[in-house]
């Protein structure tokens, strides 16, 4: 089990959250002239790193906030959590990005 520290509610079992996925994907601006590759990349392609992974969870049984989590996919260690706008990787810079 993972214990995720919700920035608002505090540490909770991951069973209270719904996993959304890779938080580093940028959605192409809705307005922009359709760039197929950008959309293909956003919807389908993943870095799928073995090591640090910045991901989104929704605290669906709690405050319903979307929470950003920086987690090591090899050890499951959670390095940091924050709100969607936070850039955890920058925050934790100095961390080697592939463990």
């Amino acid at each position, binding site marked *: 089990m993972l214990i995720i520290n919700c920035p*608002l*509610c505090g540490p909770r*079992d991951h069973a209270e959250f719904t996993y959304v996925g890779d938080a580093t994907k940028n959605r192409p601006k809705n307005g922009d002239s359709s760039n197929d590759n950008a959309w293909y990349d956003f919807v389908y392609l993943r870095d799928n790193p073995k090591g640090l992974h910045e991901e989104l969870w929704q605290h669906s049984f709690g405050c319903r906030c979307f929470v950003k989590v920086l987690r090591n996919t090899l050890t499951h260690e959670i390095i940091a959590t924050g709100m969607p706008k936070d850039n955890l990787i920058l925050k934790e810079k100095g961390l080697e990005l592939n463990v």
Partner: protein
Amino acid sequence: MTEVNTSKNSLRRQSGLAHVINYGQFGNVTLNGPSLFICERHPLTILQLDTNKSKTLTDISNLLNVEFPHTNTCNGDDKRRILWLGPNRWLIVEPEHECLQTLINNEFNSSEVFLTDLSHGKSTVRLRGRNARDVLMKGSGVDWHLNSFGADYCAHTKLFDLAATVDCRDIDVFDIYIARGFAEDFWGTLVDAAAEFGYQVD
């Protein structure tokens, strides 16, 4: 325990638990009597309030004369209670009497304050007694220890696999809010978990 109420509809307002509650003492009740007391709080007015205008917030709390609580806490009493729900979102709970919604609507601009009536969407159960925390421990991974979850704390969590809001009214008194549709099942699970301690339903 049922709240006093003056609502013209009270006679017809039927709780989601109307068909499951049996009053009396059950489970492993010892000579010192039951160590748990369970009852429904009904009918209640439960109003969700959204606003990101702090000024407005102060005005409303003056109107309701209850402070809006900070993250993971609650303010007020059984007459009027406000729970923190999420960012800029609160739950106002009181025994049904006047129309709280109109009260607020008349005072404030609907583009600044967003109200959602959830009075009928939630069932409320009060769990009281020296083993109350032991029952909560069976259903949720929140740290229910008095030092981390004392009076006026609230938690939105997964309790016996249901989305629940737990409000610590007092050291061993808890109000639990769950979705009305699951009320009957939740009640069954709760009393089953309470049986080993012996409980009384009033």
